[in-house]
């Protein structure tokens, strides 16, 4: 400890720069982790955070809610499948809406109105396809009511706000907010099924009664989500039943987004040990004479290695702490429509991963230290010379 701290005290700039570099990399990792999670949540949060255990798509829909259409024949097959407990209808459409007077309006609404695209999801059974975590207000119970995602509250979708759907001007009042229930990275509202049909009729009076996009299923007692999904899929090649988490993960684009971020994380995870390892290797070469002298006057090799590892641990700890401090205020912001969040689990995970990687990379320098021959003190040479 004496040697490690003394050297760090005397070379504040050198060690400070390394701490700064690690802090910057940690900040980027954590920021990108928040961005990935925020992006995926805004894509499929509406599927992951609703309370139906199983979703049934039509195969033609390719696991997108809006592309899926369940015909009456298919619906009957699902309802008649062994192991199915409760079945609900779930429909989703994308509509142009304006927030009523809460925001500056400049788009396709009236003069000064700002039109945005929003997803409206209709459900016909409470507790089967409704948001599972209501954080403000309540679930909609009457016609013309909706619950929105808390991520959109600041953009005109707060409790009490009235949304107008264009064209037609159908009005929906927000009566509740639920955590992370966005779909397709757009403002999302859950409405009773009849309200959903009213919206369709208001927007396009000639549309007729639309078929449900997806069926929401709760298995009978004693039947697992996977078992009921398999049973449904066995009934028809046109049905594609998936447990909730699988449905979210299998939504087109999710795997690609996750894979892209994983490559970025892998690159960062390679850069940090490279930076740390090279730094310690360079300073080990630079202070080779001093290390050789210390070995010659009786310093056990393990004491010198300990000093090196203590420095590596202190630097990665300080760098991680500084990076997390930088990340904290940024994680409270929104990036475009994507809400960021402080990811505690990611912070803990990356703290462990980066500590191990940094200490591992410092072992290369430790090997050089162990290779020092004290006799080199008599010739003025040192490790690596």
């Amino acid at each position, binding site marked *: 400890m004496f040697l490690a701290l003394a050297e760090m005290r005397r070379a504040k700039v050198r060690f400070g720069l390394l701490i700064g570099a690690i802090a910057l990399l940690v900040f980027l990792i954590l920021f990108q982790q928040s961005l990935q999670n925020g992006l995926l949540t805004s894509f499929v949060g509406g599927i992951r955070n609703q309370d139906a255990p199983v979703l049934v798509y039509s195969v033609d829909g390719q696991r997108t809610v809006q592309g899926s259409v369940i015909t009456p024949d298919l619906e009957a097959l699902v309802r008649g499948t062994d192991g199915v407990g409760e079945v609900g209808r779930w429909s989703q459409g994308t509509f142009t809406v304006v927030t009523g007077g809460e925001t500056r309006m400049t788009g396709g609404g009236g003069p000064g109105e700002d039109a945005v695209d929003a997803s409206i999801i209709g459900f016909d059974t409470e507790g089967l396809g409704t948001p599972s975590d209501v954080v403000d207000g309540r679930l909609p119970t009457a016609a013309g009511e909706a619950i929105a995602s808390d991520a959109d509250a600041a953009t005109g979708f707060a409790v009490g706000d009235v949304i107008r759907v264009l064209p037609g001007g159908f009005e929906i009042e927000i009566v509740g907010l639920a955590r992370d229930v966005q779909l397709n990275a757009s403002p999302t509202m859950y409405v009773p099924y009849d309200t959903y049909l009213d919206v369709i009729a208001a927007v396009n009076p000639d549309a007729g009664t639309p078929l449900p996009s997806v069926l929401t299923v709760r298995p009978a007692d004693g039947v697992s989500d996977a078992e009921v999904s398999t049973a449904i899929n066995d009934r028809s090649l046109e049905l594609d039943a998936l447990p909730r988490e699988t449905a979210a993960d299998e939504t087109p684009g999710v795997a690609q987004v996750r894979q892209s971020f994983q490559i970025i994380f892998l690159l960062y995870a390679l850069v940090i040990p490279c930076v740390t390892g090279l730094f310690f290797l360079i300073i080990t070469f630079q202070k080779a004479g001093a290390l050789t002298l210390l070995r010659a006057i009786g310093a056990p090799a393990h004491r010198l290695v300990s000093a090196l590892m203590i420095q590596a641990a202190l630097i990665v700890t300080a760098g991680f702490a500084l990076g997390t401090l930088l990340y904290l205020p940024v994680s409270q912001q929104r990036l475009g429509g994507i809400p960021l969040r402080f990811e505690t689990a990611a912070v803990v995970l990356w703290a462990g991963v980066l500590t191990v990687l940094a200490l591992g990379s410092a072992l290369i320098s430790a090997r050089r230290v162990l290779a020092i021959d004290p006799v080199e003190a008599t010739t*003025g040479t040192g490790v690596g010379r």
Partner: protein
Amino acid sequence: MTIPSPPTAVHFDTALHLEPALHLDDVRKVYPMGDAEVVALASANLTVGSDEMVALVGPSGSGKTTLCSIAGGILSATAGRITVGGQDITGFSDKELTSFRQESVGFVFQAVNLVPFLTARENLIVVDELGRRTGAPARERADQLLEELGLADRAKNLPSQLSGGQRQRVAIGRALMNEPDLVLFDEPTSALDTELGEQVMELIRSEMKSRGTAAIVVTHDERITHFCDRSVHIIDGHLDA
């Protein structure tokens, strides 16, 4: 530069110390060179009394640093017996030699002598930090040594802030920190001018004699041998002792 006189010399009675500081008995060091062998030290026999100061004189490549390194436990001999302060270190493992160097010998090297990122005081204290870690007594001893060496006001200076002579004095202080049986000086004046070199040798002699500590001063400069009790010459690995 003025090097202060050491404090009141402690009279050291050699009769009380029966064991010599160093005893080399037919010590040989051979380096393999392909199929051949290079003899760096050929059957060296040398005894250094417990408070004796010996100049080891020889030209470059004569084997004087090799002998010094073997005596100090930095290098293992190919054959022979080495006893330092009554301790037979001949068969010591690397770990045992490290402990031996830490506790029983002091070194002042020709080239790199101080840790550049430690202050003068810390360069002395590090000896304790690497070993027994006595703490306060070591700090007091470091302060006392620096005082004796006229470096009390330079205790917080880094080596880069010290002159060549001051650096050598700090190195001497470090070599004395562990109260060694034997101090090995490898060309201690080679980087100094004649006047400063003589002052440093005077200091070395007075410090060794005041403590009754034995020393070997490796040099190729005959002009400084008169500071030692006797001179031993070495040429091509052969000792004339």
